């Protein structure tokens, strides 16, 4: 066995009320593709931030090539050969590709040289990029390329990738994996963070599993199967949601050539979206983020009014109706962003219950709020959906992601919608909560509601949907029965990778 590139020994980091990492130790060999597995809140982010110099551990040490390694800031980590591709928060929309790349480098070449450097690395690893474009105009896959190229220009010894595939189409994932294998073959170690077990099985040579901040297992993913790794990660045996066979009901939601201009500069216009959803049916809409999901939800919720005839609810044209008029008629929505959109972070759960349920639950009379009713409804949601909180007087911000998601989804479900539209219902939610939310959606369909689930998680869509369609650049594909659809079929529906023809990896 060769000497490890990076060795972590006994890393511990505590925040008030929670220990993010407890006595974490493992090694990464040069050129190794090492998976870091764990649920949300297992402490993966804290650990990689420690390696990247953004977080200082309370105790424990790291060594890099045998020498002590304690970066005080990211620049020091970069000098030591660590590079990181972030999940969010690391690109500047209004700046160009070249400017974004330069910002991630410590001693960048001249602006002219950067263009040829970008071209060289793009060519080498099959990551085509135009240095002069504004990042805000790029697709999610292209944005990720910017980050990867930014890292590769510094010849890193260790590349950290935080959930890199959550924004990619299956074809783009394939290209990414080819790039990563090539890097690994050249001797660059990769720390690959994910909770997608299939990918880890296909790509990684070693895996460290974190649960509640502690290392619970290390394994070779090629030998340990996804099922076993899932149980290691979650610590319990998971149950797949149960679906009753549902009879075909009448069409409840009917979209006819729904079109809308992009609401802001970096938005996506909707183009002739047509679909029907029947009572008792779950329609899954897949697609990479930024292809019109937010806009579609806004058009359905009433936040972005469209022509009346474009949306029909049980035969009634409602395209012009306002948010609460639609709620009155039984069309409810659960947007993607929990904090700030589905819920007001600094308001109590009682107030957040009143956010969407005022009309349907009679929480106002002649314009005056009936707070006791709102409180009772909040308590009902908390009890029915097992939301862990001391009580409805606590702020939305004080809840964990999974608990808040259960609250906002539960809030809509308990209003007994006729049509429910949810966007990314289990994004960033722990496995147990995600299973509970999916089960609740299926039960609601069993009771005769029409449900639209928009998600980037294809596994989730395959699990809950009766029919599947893809949203690509604001266009919706024709729907196909979800049962029997292969990953390859779904990939083709999602339109494949951007710039496929140029994306040949020079092998």
């Amino acid at each position, binding site marked *: 066995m060769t000497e490890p590139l990076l060795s972590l020994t006994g890393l511990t980091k505590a925040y008030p009320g929670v220990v993010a990492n407890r006595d974490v130790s493992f090694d990464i060999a040069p050129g190794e593709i090492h998976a870091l597995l764990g649920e949300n809140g297992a402490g993966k982010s804290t650990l990689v931030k420690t390696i990247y110099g*953004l977080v200082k551990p309370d105790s424990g040490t790291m060594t890099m090539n045998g020498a002590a390694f304690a970066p005080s800031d*990211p620049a020091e980590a970069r000098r030591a050969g660590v590079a990181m591709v*972030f999940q969010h*928060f690391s690109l*500047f*929309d*209004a700046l160009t590709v070249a400017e974004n790349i330069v*910002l*991630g480098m410590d001693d960048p070449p001249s602006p002219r040289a950067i263009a040829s450097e970008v071209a060289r690395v793009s060519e080498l690893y099959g990551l085509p990029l135009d240095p002069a474009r504004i990042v805000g105009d790029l697709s999610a896959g292209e944005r990720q390329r910017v980050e990867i190229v930014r890292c590769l220009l510094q010849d890193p010894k260790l590349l950290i990738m935080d959930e890199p595939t959550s924004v990619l189409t299956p074809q783009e994932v394939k290209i990414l994996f080819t790039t990563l294998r090539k890097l690994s073959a050249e001797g660059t170690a990769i720390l690959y963070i994910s909770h997608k077990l299939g990918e880890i099985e296909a790509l990684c040579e070693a895996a460290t599993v974190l649960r509640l901040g502690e290392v619970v297992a290390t394994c070779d993913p090629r030998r340990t199967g996804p099922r076993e790794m899932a149980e290691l990660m979650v610590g319990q045996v998971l149950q797949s949601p149960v679906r009753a066979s549902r009879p075909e009901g009448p069409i409840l939601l009917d979209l006819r050539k729904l079109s809308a201009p992009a609401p802001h500069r970096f938005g996506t216009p909707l183009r002739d979206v047509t679909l029907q959803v029947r009572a008792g049916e779950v329609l899954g809409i897949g697609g990479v983020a930024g292809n019109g999901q937010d806009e579609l939800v806004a058009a359905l919720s009433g936040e972005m009014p469209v022509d009346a005839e474009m949306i029909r609810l049980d035969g009634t044209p409602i395209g012009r109706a306002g948010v609460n008029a639609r709620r009155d008629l039984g069309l409810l929505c659960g947007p993607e962003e929990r904090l700030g959109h589905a819920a007001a972070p600094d308001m109590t759960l009682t107030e957040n219950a009143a956010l969407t349920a005022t009309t349907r639950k009679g929480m106002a009379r002649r314009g005056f709020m009936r707070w006791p009713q709102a409180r009772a409804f909040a308590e009902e949601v908390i009890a029915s959906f097992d939301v862990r909180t001391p009580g409805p007087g606590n702020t939305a911000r004080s809840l964990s992601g999974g608990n808040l998601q259960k609250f906002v989804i539960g809030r809509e479900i308990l209003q007994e919608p006729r049509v429910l539209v949810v966007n990314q219902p289990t994004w960033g939610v722990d496995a147990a909560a995600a299973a509970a939310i999916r089960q609740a959606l299926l039960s609601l369909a069993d009771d005769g509601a029409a449900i639209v689930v928009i998600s980037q998680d294809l596994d989730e869509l395959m699990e809950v949907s009766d029919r599947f369609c893809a949203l690509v650049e604001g266009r919706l594909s024709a729907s196909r029965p979800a049962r029997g659809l292969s990953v390859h079929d779904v990939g083709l529906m999602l339109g494949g990778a951007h710039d496929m023809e140029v994306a040949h990896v020079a092998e």
Partner: protein
Amino acid sequence: MDLSSINPILLLASLMVAATPILLAAIGELVAERAGVLNLGVEGMMITGAVVGFIVAVNTGSPWLGFAGAAVGGAALSLVFGVLTQYLLSNQVATGLALTLFGLGLSALLGQGYIGVKAPSFPDLDVPLLSDIPVIGPIVFRHDPMVYLGLFIVLGVWLFLNRSRAGLILRAVGENHDAAHALGYSVRRTRMLAIAFGGACAGLGGAYLSLVRVPQWTEGMTAGAGWIALAIVVFASWRPGRLVLGAYLFGGVTVLQLNLQAAGVAIPVEYLSMTPYLATIAVLVIMSAGRSPGSLGKIFHAAR
């Protein structure tokens, strides 16, 4: 009424002078806003600069020292805003308003003994050769040095923002402070420096009023100039080049209405005096603003 008494050459020449205080204050605020900081205290920093510059100039007899003092005074006051908004995470709008109210009180207090005092003169700089060109010479090349310094600062800011790495970092911080932090740039330090630069420029602009344009000290003499500077930054879509255009446009309106007043136009003086403010509103309405820096006015707290 005698419109022929208005000399177009003098009018255009005084336009550059009238625009200078606004231009100075606006270029400072532009840098602060590009770093993501909305400082509504420009008026307060300007008037503090006006009084500090005046006091220093009168006591030392040197207008140059006066301007230096004004820059230091404006920057010092801006750092109060900086500490409150960057370290104590207060609301930028409220804190900026507080800075303006505080600055107005502070300047009135400091300037008590200086009302009616005359400022030391600040001679014009006749640019050799160029100032002798007919028409253009008197309009462009026979001003005091601060007129040109203001333009040099604008040029310097443009070069800094678009050609230097530090400028790129500043823009990055203003665009997305979380991303800048994740890449290891110090959001607070960048912003504190930008705020201080904004304060220094506002101070210079204020001192230009009390030392050159008026030139004496009166309470509340900035009369909204700081707010107009803020408006011009929006008008300019946060771009230095357009800032000059905006300031000169405003200077033109001011000078024209003053000339009309002097020429005895049959409109009451008060209605003419309104025009710069109305023009500012009109400009704000007509020019739809460009995209503002992504993190403008947002509180940055590096969590976890």
